[in-house]
């Protein structure tokens, strides 16, 4: 029994310096692991996944970091063995490029559409006359809205504020 305690004590002594170093390393492991998708879970990163594989991957990252490898180097190694799908941020190359281009194309189309709409509205024939025909309505709506209650109130505010 005393032998066991002594052995455990020795083990703890051996572990202590590594624990202290681990705290500095831990942030690095998390930084890298956050950029990797856990291959066996749904929508979890290697940093957050409780699965065994993710644990093993974190251990690999730790060894590599301890050996002085750069983050990008470690990520590249994982991409080499698992493919681009391992990265949480899709790379801007190959098939993954499409996911980045989609919103650009979509928003550009939207801007063009709004532009066309604006120019169409400015050219509506008869729109101006229609607007004047609806003259009393539009003066009433101006600034506040169609209900006379609020309009009157706002008129009062404006007068009170002298604007």
């Amino acid at each position, binding site marked *: 029994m005393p032998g066991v305690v002594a052995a455990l004590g020795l083990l703890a002594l051996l572990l202590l310096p590594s624990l202290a170093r681990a705290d500095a390393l831990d942030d690095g492991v998390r930084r890298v692991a956050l950029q990797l998708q856990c291959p066996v879970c749904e929508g979890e990163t290697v940093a957050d996944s409780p699965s065994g594989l993710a644990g093993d991957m974190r251990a690999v990252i730790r060894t590599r970091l301890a050996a002085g490898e750069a983050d990008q180097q470690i990520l590249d190694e994982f991409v080499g063995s698992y493919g681009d*799908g391992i990265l949480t*941020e899709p790379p801007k190359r190959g098939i993954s490029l499409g996911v980045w281009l989609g919103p650009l194309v979509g928003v550009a189309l939207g801007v063009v559409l709004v532009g066309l709409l604006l120019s169409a509205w*400015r050219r509506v024939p008869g729109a101006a006359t229609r607007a004047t025909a609806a003259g009393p309505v539009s003066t009433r709506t101006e600034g506040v809205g169609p209900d006379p209650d*609020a309009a009157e109130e706002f008129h009062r505010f404006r007068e009170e*504020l002298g604007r």
Partner: protein
Amino acid sequence: MAPLGQICIVGAFGLALYAIVSSIAGVRVRNRELTASGQYAAWAVTGLITAASVTLLVALSVHDFSLRYVWEHSSRAMSMDLVLAAFYSGQQGSLLYWAWTLSIFSAIVLWQQRRPGPHRVFMPYVVAVLMVVEAFMTLLLGFIASPFEALPRPPADGVGLNPLLYDPGMRIHPPMLLAGLMSWSVPFAFAIAALATGKLDNDWIAVSRRYAMVAWVILGLGNILGAWWAYHVLGWGGYWGWDPVENVALMPWLVGTAFIHSIQMQERRGMLKAWNLALIMVAFFLSIFGTFVVRSGILASVHAFALSAIGPYFLTFLALVIGGSLWLFFWRLPRLRSDNQLDSLLSREASFLINNLLFLGIVFAIFWGTIYPLVAEAVANAKVSVGPPYFKQVAGPLLGALILLMGIGPLMPWRRASREHLLNNFVTPVAGAVVGLAFLFAEGVRDPFAAIGFGVCLFVLGTILQEFVRGALARHHATGENYLVALGSLIRRNNRRYGGYIVHLAMLLIGAGVVGSQIYQQQTQATLAPGESVTLAGYTVTAHGIDTTTLPGVKVTEGVLSVNGSEDLRPARQLFDNFPQQPSTRVGLRSTPFEDLYVVLAGWDGDGPTAKISLAIFVNPLVSWIWTGGVLLLFGTIVTLWPAAAVSRRHVTAPIARGAVGATS
């Protein structure tokens, strides 16, 4: 119990079909009794689905394990509120819940719209559309995914709820989210009715605006509660993971937000009529798509789709609904002309257009990122992961622009803004934002993204406060009421406008909370022997081993910690007997108005007070602002919808409205 529930569902399916046919046939052959019988059938559908739901609830509460659903989702050890929550925790039960809430909403619509008025012409079609959705759901429930499937030999005890669902959030988040997705059916039904009847002016919007607002607030709160639940239960220090299931619930809400803004263009200026119809259709399609994704797991992989029995039915239904709606839409498109032109780019109209462009841009980016893994797998057989970095980089700037617009848009006048108007309205808020930013800089805020984010929030805060102050001052001068009373009656008399400002304030709180917690989160990990400490952002966390308790069906292991020498904090792991592979987390949380200390028990070695424990520790600034924003959002929406002011307004405008109707018809 099984036959009773099954009969109710099949009966509801038959009556829903009858209601569709008799409503539409009644309009076609101008037979009022026939359309009326369609409405009675809709009431009966409500009754039958309610009976089916009560049957399932009773089966759950008496632990009738002869029903497969009861056996799979509850157990004798569970407390009664959790047993009842099991009602909507599985696929079949949540579809029944969806159908049930839809039938209740249908009944509410029928009741509220029972009086004669311009909206009556829509009602047969509204009933028909609601019953089409109801018929589809009861078809699934009755024949494909029945919650009333019987087990030949009832087991003695059930499997129980998934461990992740043992949380107070479970009792409120799923029902809110599902009801929020469901409730877009109502404004959609009015849009289809407007297209079918050809009455395409503002009537359908006047009737359905309130229903859209209700759908909006329910789905919004469902999403916020989901974030709150994830934050408390999942234990990764965040609240939003851009998971497909989260994204599909967010998208209809964003489109709905665009809708409740752009309908003002139609109400005030007779513009964007076709666009509003298209928006509410998209919101509805995305809601059905969301329900489908949440319940079928298609987005995990194409292969999961094949495993899900309901998948092909949902896709067929979605295709039919989209096809039918588009056909109606393009048939009526020639009649959807704008009444007015755009006078200036510096106007309320233009800001609404930009608002819609931004909302739809965000929705498209989220949609694209969510389905892209499927597209890549189908097209190139390549595995692509689209994680949070994509969504943050693409949606983040667009959301920031929206918040900025939230400050500019409401202060823009309709038609055209003058130079004086701009100076008069924007000088003070801009100056306020500059002063506020200088203060933040002095407090140590250096990150450029944080500066932009907080600066925009401060500017918008200035514009909103300015509106309240000016309104209250003017009212004080005009009526002599003291300032507080003036503020109260200002809000009461213009509840739609000022309720909207309160909702905008809620969005600011949420925005500031997101900026703060995304940029200034601090995190560390530590393995601590008893008595050892770790320090993060001024918090010293000291370990005192673990404390294990065994409750019926679950073993709880708490890490015993003290914070800054005194306060007790106990993050825990829970291991349910029926789910040994799935330990769940209970986060140790110490929340203050400005930051949360968030501690996760990652592991332990040993037992009792001598155990060595591993912790993940986060300090998350401003997260509680997000939850406060959720409460304020509900309050602002209630102010907007508060009926008293609307009633008095109707009295005032009634003669004018009647005159206007007389003039046009």
